[in-house]
């Protein structure tokens, strides 16, 4: 008999980066008011922002760590202090210092040159400015604002930002939202005026180029009445970070009859704690579409949330999570139906292998005023071996009598018969398995622009490398 087939984990250690100078920056103890004030000064914050940072710090210190999800005790708070120390430009390495293996990995993944450089934080400034101006030229004439959040606060949209910033995700939300409020840095501000339909997707990775900006970046997007936008968050390459915590925040405001599609492919390095908070508020007749692919990180807590506030608001969530050795990814989504005639649709897939853990966690609340609302949730899991884990935790809280709610969960493995079929046409076992997994994840890849879909399939291929028969 042939040996049982194992799917081996790829060696992700190539993404790890040792900063020899790390100790030189380490500060004693936790996050202090002094550090927060220093950041604020460095950022040239407005007074209200400094107040928000200090208030957030207080909440952070008073709030306990979450106890209900994957273990986060490996989280090194000293690193966070190290990270948030202003002027800590050594955090990101020179592109020429990036180990050859990592460069090779980028080659294999087909990551665009501009993004590769932005990952190392060098040369990206030039490249990103260039790209930024191109985008600006395309959409600026229509009145679309796409800029970095820090400078926008001081500009003509300052009041608009103050009105929306951390209103959807208040610092009181959870410990890491508070941390974010205290130390946030970098990120994007997008405003799409009434009735403007942006034809080409806006892509964020060109903007995450400030040293370490990928760690606590804040994305604020306001799509006004009847407008239409597709925003792509580019965490698409293996991020290469010293600090091992990512606590970003995304706040999306979708106006009346407006539509926003928010796509993300995340592939953090495998020492990363990804504790990101994403939330959208949707007005009458508006639509939010989340497209989400989670590949990397050691631990993830990620539940994009849609608050369907207006009559007829709609949320669509399409996600895939791939978890390998040493990974515990707790992902899913939340929908809060507040308005009548609201609809939510959730379609997720999870893939686990080599002892990786996946938890799909969803929560749907249909509140008393949300008459005639609908929610449909479907999640499927693919287990590539018997040592991996996949859990489904769907929660529903329905407070109306006429809600139409459905939940469907499926779990399966790759059938030997399918592998044999594909191999009988000349595909190697590895290619056959990668093809099956890509096919399983096609709910997401079908929704992505072609180059991102290709990149995602390359990621799957890379994860499936080392398959032995």
């Amino acid at each position, binding site marked *: 008999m042939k040996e049982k087939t194992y799917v081996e984990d790829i060696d992700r250690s190539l993404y790890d980066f040792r900063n020899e100078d790390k100790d030189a920056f380490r500060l004693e103890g936790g996050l202090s008011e002094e550090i927060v004030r220093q950041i604020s000064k460095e950022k040239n914050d407005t007074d209200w922002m400094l107040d928000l940072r200090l208030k957030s710090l207080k909440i952070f210190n008073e709030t306990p760590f979450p106890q209900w999800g994957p273990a986060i005790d490996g989280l090194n708070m000293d690193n966070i202090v190290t990270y948030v120390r202003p002027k800590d430009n050594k955090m990101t390495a020179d592109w020429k210092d990036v180990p050859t293996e990592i460069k090779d990995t980028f080659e294999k993944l087909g990551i665009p040159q501009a993004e590769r450089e932005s990952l190392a934080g060098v040369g990206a400034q030039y490249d990103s400015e260039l790209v930024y101006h191109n985008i600006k030229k395309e959409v600026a004439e229509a009145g679309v604002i796409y800029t970095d959040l820090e400078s926008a606060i001081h500009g003509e949209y300052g009041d608009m930002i103050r009105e929306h910033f951390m209103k959807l995700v208040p610092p009181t939300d959870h410990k890491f939202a508070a941390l974010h409020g205290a130390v946030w840095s970098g990120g994007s501000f997008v405003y799409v005026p009434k009735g403007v339909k942006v034809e080409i997707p806006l892509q964020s990775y060109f903007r995450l180029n400030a040293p370490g900006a990928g760690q606590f970046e804040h994305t604020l997007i306001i799509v006004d009445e009847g407008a239409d936008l597709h925003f792509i968050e580019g965490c698409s390459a293996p991020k290469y970070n010293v600090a091992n915590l990512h606590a970003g925040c995304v706040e999306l405001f979708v106006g009346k009859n407006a539509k926003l599609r928010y796509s993300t492919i995340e592939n953090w390095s495998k020492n990363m704690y990804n504790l990101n908070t994403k939330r959208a508020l949707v007005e009458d007749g508006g639509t939010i579409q989340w497209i989400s692919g989670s590949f990397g990180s050691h631990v993830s807590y990620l539940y994009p949330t849609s608050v369907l506030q207006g009559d007829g608001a709609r949320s669509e969530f399409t996600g895939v999570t791939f978890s390998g050795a040493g990974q515990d990814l707790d992902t899913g989504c939340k929908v809060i139906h507040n308005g009548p005639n609201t609809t939510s649709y959730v379609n997720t897939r999870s893939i686990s292998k080599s002892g990786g853990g996946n938890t799909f966690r969803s929560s749907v609340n249909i509140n008393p005023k949300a008459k005639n609302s609908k929610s449909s949730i479907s999640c499927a899991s693919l287990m590539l071996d018997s040592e991996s884990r996949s859990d489904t935790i769907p929660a529903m809280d329905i407070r109306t009598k006429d809600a139409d709610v459905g939940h469907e969960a499926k779990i399966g493995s790759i*059938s030997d018969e399918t592998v044999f079929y*594909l191999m009988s046409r*000349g*595909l190697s076992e590895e290619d056959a398995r990668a*093809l099956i997994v890509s096919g399983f994840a096609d709910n997401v890849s079908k929704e992505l622009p072609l180059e991102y879909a290709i990149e995602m399939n390359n990621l799957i291929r890379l994860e499936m490398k080392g398959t032995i028969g």
Partner: protein
Amino acid sequence: MANKILEVKDVKARVEDNEILHGLNLTINEGETHVIMGPNGAGKSTLGNVLMGNPKYEKISGQIFFNGEDITEAGTDEIAKKGMFLSFQNPIEVPGITLSNFIRNAYQNRNGGRIRLWDFRKDLENSMKLLSMDPSYANRDLNVGFSGGEKKKAEILQLLMLKPNLAILDETDSGLDVDAVKTVSEGIKAYKEKVGGALIIITHSTRILESLDVDYTHILVDGKIVKSGDATLVDEINREGFEKYITK
């Protein structure tokens, strides 16, 4: 003298603990058409799987030579690349890749090098026309939601496109209506004419054979070939069944 394309020497094979092939011998020369008939459970489909190297079927003893090379221990993908093809009795649905992309991918895998997109499309279009397949199937996910008949046609389409030098057709005619059998049979005929490859046709019925020239017929009973003959053996089976070959 014709060249041997396949030589099966005294092969015994099992699935889990059940031995199904009990010493099977078979020799096929280039371009020949062989028919394998036999009662249910005789090991007909097992033979196809064993030849194609399905890891679920364990070879206990014996040897298989393909184009003079020993492929007894070869992997399925290697065997496919050497030019063997198995048309599945129950083709598998594979979401995420279109029929057209799959065939192109497989073609490039087997033959190495790239095929010109224009040539490929033209070839695919013509082959689909021959099989009365709606062109839209080319852009649908492989076998996903295809009817039984369309799945079988898609197998023959792959046969025509991949141009193997030995094709095993495992009950390609089962579950097809009269018209579909005729169409599939036309496809097989086209393969013989254009590619000139050898064929092993595993079948229960004889409808699919009507428009084909059969060189040899083998009766497979209880994991062994108990009788070989020419095309007239097919008629004999049609008249008399397998009864006289089954030893109780």
